[in-house]
């Protein structure tokens, strides 16, 4: 996604802004895919799968641990019986070892077929060996965040768009813009024992790009996930309806 938004013409930004303006505001959809009362009746004991990151999201292990711990802490506080991530992680690690690792030995790239096999068998093995009502999956992913006058708002959070300082004489110097910029969000999903999706919600973490005149630049990995407060808030937003 980011390659397509890396360089966006001013015209496109303005066009997007125009269309966003002309669209009627959408009603916020419920994160529940089933009746909320049925969810409450059937889902009490949950296993939490290790947090994963979508392609192109460089999530350090420490960030994954922080997000997992926060999900467990909040679910525990909401009265769920939560199994530690270690239970799921142990099975997942065993499966990963059995397939000889998830990366192609020659290219180092992730082998999607092996990843799918590990995911599938880990889930089946969890069902076989643990008594639980469902599984909580955590994923950090990139999303499009609409921004107006250089202020972005997505998945329950707001953030000023960082703007690279323009040189004197540049037509973009001091100009505020509107459009859509890439951001990261934490997604929390709950599945039942048959892998039916029951709940899915997101909380915004941070923008992963800055604006340079009419174009966008990706932020370096070292500039991302630096604010624990933002991460904790993203988790809080993603589980608040549970």
């Amino acid at each position, binding site marked *: 996604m980011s390659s397509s938004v890396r360089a966006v*013409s001013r015209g*496109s930004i303005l066009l*997007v802004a125009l*269309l966003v303006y002309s*669209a009627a505001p959408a009603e916020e959809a419920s994160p529940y895919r089933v009746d909320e009362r049925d969810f409450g009746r059937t889902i009490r004991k949950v296993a939490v799968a290790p947090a994963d990151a979508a392609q192109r999201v460089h999530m350090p292990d420490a960030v994954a641990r922080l997000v997992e711990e926060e999900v467990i802490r909040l679910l525990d506080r909401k009265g769920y019986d939560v199994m530690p991530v270690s239970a799921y992680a142990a099975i997942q690690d065993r499966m990963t070892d*059995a397939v000889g690792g998830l990366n192609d030995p020659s290219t180092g790239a992730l082998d999607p077929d*092996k990843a799918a096999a590990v995911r599938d068998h880990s889930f*089946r093995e969890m069902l076989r060996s643990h008594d639980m009502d469902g599984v909580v999956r955590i994923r950090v992913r990139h999303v499009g965040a609409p921004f107006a006058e250089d202020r972005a708002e997505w998945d329950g959070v707001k953030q000023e768009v960082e703007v690279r300082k323009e040189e004197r004489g540049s037509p973009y110097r001091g100009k505020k813009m509107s459009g859509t910029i890439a951001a990261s969000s934490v997604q929390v999903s709950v599945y039942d024992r048959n892998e039916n999706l029951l709940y899915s919600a997101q909380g915004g973490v941070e923008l992963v790009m800055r604006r340079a005149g009419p174009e966008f630049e990706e932020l370096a990995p070292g500039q991302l996930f630096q604010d624990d407060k933002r991460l904790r808030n993203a988790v809080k937003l993603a589980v608040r309806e549970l």
Partner: protein
Amino acid sequence: MRTLLSRLTLVCCLCTAPAFAAKVVPITELEAFPENESEQSLWQMAEEHEQRLEKEQRRWRNAEVEDYVRSVVLRMMGDRLDHVQVDVEIILVSEPTLSAWVYPYGDIAVHTGLLAGMENEAQLAAILGHEISHFVHRHSYRELVVDNQQSGLGKGLGLLLTAAVAAKTGAVDTGLMDSVGGLYTGLVTNGYSRKLEHVADAGGLELMAEAGYDRAEAVTAFEALKQNDVYGVVNVNTLWSSHPKLEDRIENLRSDVEQARRGKDYRPGKVPDSASYYRAIAPALLYNASLDLRDRFFDRARNALQKYLSVEPSAQAEFLVGETHRLAALEGPDFEPRLAAYRRAVELDSRYAPAYREIGMAERQRGGAPAAAAALQRYVELAPEAPDAGIIRAYLEDLR
């Protein structure tokens, strides 16, 4: 950017269109097609949309099924378009919902879900006839140029420009939304008024009758579009108040069919048998079942697989039937329906590895260690390089 340019061109053409906007005649009355620059611009936008399907890998290519659908279209068109040399292409779209649309130059897109949802060729012909009718009467161009000019461009520029790219029947497909504006929903729904839909419905019935199909099958075909409710998608016809509701259209079709029956020149058409239809679209039945399985619409998947198996014994189809039972209830406790399907699969093809894996997994789950070990062993022998072969070997170690 090309899309933007073609839209701007179309805006310019629309501004200068009044001279020819007074009447849009059917293609059958034209000598050349497209008629003018503004229609040419509409075509260009439609081509860009068609190319996007390709780019987004949403096309499902199968020459056999494409040829079959095209043969039905050509049978219905007859020779009425020979003078403008329209070369119709069939675009099969990898989508389990029931939908079809026509581009302004005659290419017809059909969801694999629509093919799977019909019961015989006459029903498919009913939907295709409707799309052909939109095409022959140049409804997209008409809606864009004539009706919208008359309404003072009241529908909004974005919708106007996208409204005429394709006429659609069935489900609104949000996956096809335009990346810059998400306006495709408007495109496929807002573009056709009640009046034009009725013309297309009636025209479709006439085409069916001329091609020798029983018109009554159109009622069943449009009834089948209600299956889209399963997917939680919005039927095209229920989204906009200016558009006739699906129920109303079915009633209209029913009444048109009855009226035709009472006519003195009425000749009953044929209802081709379902088996020939399932045979002609067999690869689409199997493919669409895998889409339904992926999206967890197990009953729909099983239904398509049963249609497939009624004409073609297949280990893969039997295996997928087993998967519809397994995925609907991962742990059982009723293992028999899935095991029966997996066993039928290996009876049909003793080298069909995935069925052995699932027999083994089910037996392991219910505690049948020797049967599990035998089946899992057979799996790793047949598929030693499978992505999960290492995991299955680990299970075998545990079982010993």
